[in-house]
Structures are given as C-alpha cells and as structure tokens.
C-alpha cells in the first residue's frame, strides 16, 4: 500500500532506454502536493523537456505516492490528453479519469458581468430607485407601527427603546465630550487671535455661542453618532440576516420594524438632542477655558454674557436638528441593515454605505436647515 510516508521521498524522473530504442521515463518518488511544492519550478521545466519527446514511454507504476496535484502536474505536462500517456497502477486511474472529465467541463466561472456595468447611469438610477422604494416602505411600516404603539402604549417596545437609548446616548457621552471640548478650545483659540487684532475680545462669547449651539454642536454630535451607533445598528441587523435571526422573527410573527427599527429610531430621536445639549455645554466649556487663557476673559463674564449673546431660538433650532438627524441616522442605518444579503462581503459594504450615507445626509440636511432658517435666531 502506498500509505503517505513521513519522510518524503523527493519526486523525480528516471530515464533509460527501452527495447526498440525509445526513451522510457519512470516516475519515481512521492508526487504529492507537499513533496512537489518546494521543487515545483525545476519539475516544471524537466517535465516540459521530457514530454516534448512524443515517443517516450512513461511509466507511473514505480511512483511511491501520487495525489491529485501530482497527477494534474503530469497530465498538464502531457498536454491534457484524453487518456494518460503512462502505464498506471489501477488505483491511480481514477485521478486521470477525473482530470479528463474536468477538462470537458465548462470553463471556470466568469466574473459577474453586471459589476462592470455598475457605472452606467441606468444602473445607478435603478439602484437609487430600489433604495428609495425600500426606504419608503420602511418609513411606511414605521408610521403604522408608531400609530399602533400610540393606540396601545402598553405593548410598545419600551425595554428595547430604553436599551437603545443607553447604548446610543449614555455610552456616547465620553466621546462627544472629548471631541466637543477640543473643538471648543480650538475654535476659541483661533477666533480670539483674530479678535485681538480688532480689540473686539468680548465678542468671542457671541462667535462661540452661536457657532457651537447652532451649527457645530448638532453636526458634531450627529456625525459621531452616525459613525458610532449607525454602523453598529447596520451591523447588528446584517448579522441577524446572516444568522437567519430575522427569518426566525418573521416566522414567530414578530414584526421586524416594530421590534428592531422603531426602538432605534425613537431612541435616537430622543437621544441625539440630549447628546447635542451635552456636546454644546462641553464645547462652550472648552471655549471658555481657551478664552480665559488667551484673552484673560473671566469665567464669570463669559457665563453672564452667554444668555445675551445667543438668542434662545438657536438652541431650539439645534435641538430640532438633533431630532431630525437622529431619525435620519437610525432610519438609514436600519435601511442598510435590512438590505444586507447573507454574506460577509455584503455586510461590510452595507455598514460602510450606511455610515457614509448617514454622514452625507446629515451635512446635506444641515445645509437645508441653514437656508430655511436663515432669518431665525440671527437678528441682533
């Protein structure tokens, strides 16, 4: 029996002259993938040279061990004939039979062609249409769930809402504080340098106040939450698709939107405005510290001047933005999550798509807000 041996017998060809003057080639040694691997290049050239002689008589019977890779190597050297060119042991015949059958099989799978068309506008349009349709369906289902929830508040997913609020809100306090504080410091430092030139030091409160409360706080918090919570929501739903948990929920009659999507949307609709207030506060704190260091502005003056410098409408506007951003981020994250197909590549693409889209949409909607509310909160 040609049991695999532990000490590998190197694969080699042995030549001698058969009766009649023809060249006889004996295949000896271990022709297994493991033994072949280190000497593949030399064997390739030797095999090519040996098989160039069409009259040579090959003998595969003395081989110590042969596996599929070894058989394929020899067979390719022979030019993939229908029947092997060598005398074989009976147990090796099936290798070559299978290889010959493989040659008749259709060519290897082509690269999926539709991927090459991905840049055509029509394909873009179709994709956009599919996204829009799914999103409308999702929003519709959410609205119906919301109505049902209002009709029977006792059956609402309070526990999930609370859990989501904790994960997306409470656990994001640290990172939003850090980023907010640093942005406040930087903004205050740069502005105060400019203001010093004009002797308009005290206006640092106005500049910081309006820009942080109206723009920076909401957008900063929204982008952080989109990256942090949006991606995790998409990944969670995607993994549930991969592991068939979504299917399990469906067959149990638990609606996916009301148990999975609605709590996330509600949690972010409440959580993000709260995070924005927090970010605002910390960013202003950072600005105050920097203004004190750079301009010598006293903390007391800063705090006292703040209410007068920022019309309260700006705070409401910022919080309103927060609600809209929160709903959008959760909605997009869930939309992308539910579109993930059960494979790992789709999971990665979906998560990326979710975060990129959410951040882009947040900035876009912020611009819309800026135009729509240009007369609000800025009149002095």
């Amino acid at each position: 029996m040609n049991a695999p041996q532990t000490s590998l017998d190197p694969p080699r060809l042995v030549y001698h002259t058969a009766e009649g003057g023809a060249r006889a080639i004996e295949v000896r040694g271990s022709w297994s993938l493991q033994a072949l691997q280190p000497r593949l290049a030399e064997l390739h050239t030797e095999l090519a040279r040996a098989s160039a002689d069409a009259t040579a008589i090959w003998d595969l019977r003395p081989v110590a061990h042969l596996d599929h890779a070894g058989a394929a190597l020899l067979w390719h050297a022979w030019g993939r004939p229908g029947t092997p060119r060598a005398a074989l042991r009976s147990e090796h015949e099936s290798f070559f039979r299978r290889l010959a059958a493989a040659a008749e099989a259709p060519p290897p799978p082509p690269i999926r062609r539709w991927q090459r068309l991905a840049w055509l506008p029509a394909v873009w349009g179709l994709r956009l249409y599919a996204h829009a349709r799914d999103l409308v369906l999702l929003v519709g289902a959410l609205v119906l769930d919301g109505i049902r929830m209002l009709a029977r508040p006792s059956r609402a997913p309070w526990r999930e809402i609370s859990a989501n609020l904790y994960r997306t809100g409470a656990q994001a306090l640290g990172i939003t504080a850090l980023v907010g504080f640093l942005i406040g410091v930087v903004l205050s430092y740069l502005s105060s340098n400019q203001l010093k030139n004009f002797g308009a030091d005290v206006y640092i409160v106005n500049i910081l106040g309006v820009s942080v409360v109206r723009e920076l706080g909401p957008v900063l918090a929204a982008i952080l939450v989109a990256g942090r919570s949006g991606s995790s929501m998409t990944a969670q739903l995607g993994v549930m698709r991969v592991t068939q948990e979504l299917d399990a929920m469906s067959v149990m009659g638990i609606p996916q939107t009301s148990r999975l999507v609605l709590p996330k949307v509600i949690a972010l609709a409440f959580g993000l405005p709260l995070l924005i207030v927090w970010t605002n506060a910390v960013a202003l704190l950072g600005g105050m510290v920097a203004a004190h260091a750079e301009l010598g502005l006293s903390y007391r003056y800063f705090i006292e001047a703040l209410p007068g410098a920022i019309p309260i409408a700006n705070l409401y506007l910022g919080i309103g933005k927060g609600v809209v951003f929160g709903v959008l981020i959760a909605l997009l994250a869930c939309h992308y999550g539910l579109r993930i197909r059960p494979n790992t590549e789709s999971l990665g693409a979906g998560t990326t798509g979710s975060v990129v889209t959410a951040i882009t949409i947040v900035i876009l909607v912020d611009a819309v807000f800026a135009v729509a509310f240009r007369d609000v909160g800025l009149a002095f």
Partner: protein
Amino acid sequence: MENPGAGRADIERDAVIDVRGLWSRFGRTLVHRGIDLSVCRSEVLGVVGGSGSGKTTLLRQMLGLEQPYRGAVTVFGVDLNRARGAERESVRARWGVLFQNGALFSALSVYDNIALALRELRALDEDIIRDLVISKLQMVGIEAHHAAKMPAQLSGGMIKRIGLARALALDPELLFLDEPTAGLDPDRSESFVALIQELRREMHLTVVMVTHDLDTLVSLADRVAVLCEQRLLAVGPLREVSALGHPFVRNFFQGERGRRALEVLEDVQRLMPI
C-alpha cells in the same frame, strides 16, 4: 477498549493524533478531565457523547483552535501548542476540516472557495488549479456548472459536499468531520457516508469524526470514542463499546434507533466476517 493491552506500543508508533492527559475548562466549568486518546493511521475514529460533553471542544483542540488547560495534543508528531511557524504550517497542509455548517466563505463562489487554499500555496498555475478544483467537485458529486454559485444559493447537502471538497483541496492525509451528516435527509446522508468511504479508500485518509448519527457511526467508524462526564468512557470497536453497561452508553446504543443500527451491523458482520 480502555485497557491499553499489548497493542498499545504499536498504536502509538503509528498514531496520527495523540492526546495526552487533556484537561479543558471554560471559566469555572470543567469540560475534560484527563483524556488520553490516540488516532491511528488510516482508521476512522468516531467521537460520540451527549450534548455538552465536549466533543466539539476536543475536535477544536485537535485542530489547535483552542488551548488545552492542561495536557498536550500532538498531530503528526507536532505539539500544536508548542510548535511555531513552519512546523505548525506543515501540519495544517496535511489536514482538512469539514465544519458542521460548512463554513464556506460566503463572499467567495464555490470555485474560489476550493481554489483558495491551492492559490495560497503560490506554486500552482491557474489552469492546474482549475482542473484540480473541477475534479475535486466531481469527486464529491457536484457538477461543474455549480462552481459559479455563491454559498448562499446552495442547499444544505451541497454545502456539506462543497465543504468536503474544500477540505480535500490539498489532498490531506487527515480529515476532520464535525457532524458530517447532521441536517441531511437519510438518503443524502447515506450517499454522503458512501462518498466518505470511497474517498477514504482512494486517498488513504485518516478520519476523525464527531457525530450523533448512529447509522453514520455504524457504517464508517472503525473505532468509537465515548465522551461522558468529562472523561473518555471507552475507546474501541463499536460492538465492544456498545456492550458496556454504562447508562449513557445504554441510552445511546440500546435505544430503539441504536438497536436497529446495531442489528444491521451484526447482519453485515455475519455475512462478511472480519
């Protein structure tokens, strides 16, 4: 049997896998308490045991996926937990694993799933790889036109077969099967068993198989290892093991299903005395 007897030295010399004094635990739960087990060349060892008896853990330790708490696992003479680098890689090139749910790479087509390990060698030409992949697919009874499909488009039986083709891609000497017939209908599971028998003859495989399925055990296993209560209850030919008086063994083998499977075994052995 548990009693090593005179054949012990022989077995050890020819052992492909050698498990010595293996303890494993998760947190505070002890899973194995001193397991000694050898797998000989060219045999099929079936590992059975109740749920939670650590069958899969044992398999994972044989694969070096988990560190034992105490004891050693040696595969092809290499201690998996001590060996580094090339030595470890050399072991990995000599075994193939069929995971319970196939564990096909969901982002790759069937073809690429099987070709992956061959390409990773960076030694073979793409046209040789192609022929190898197609012939491996034919070996497990999958037609070539399925090669372009993605794993998500396959049925459970096909996933098992393709998982097996992938496990065999590098022509391994040692094959691990985790519940090879779980989730297959009786007809398919029978043909899967026949397939493994055929491959075993053709490729001189040593097989370690974790299974619940008595029919699979009866038709494939040369020896059976029974894990129970954190220990190795017994190792030996199925007939000897099934005769033990231990409650788990009685339950497992002497139940309605077990009796039926064993009757078949006895019929076969009467007709073809070994």
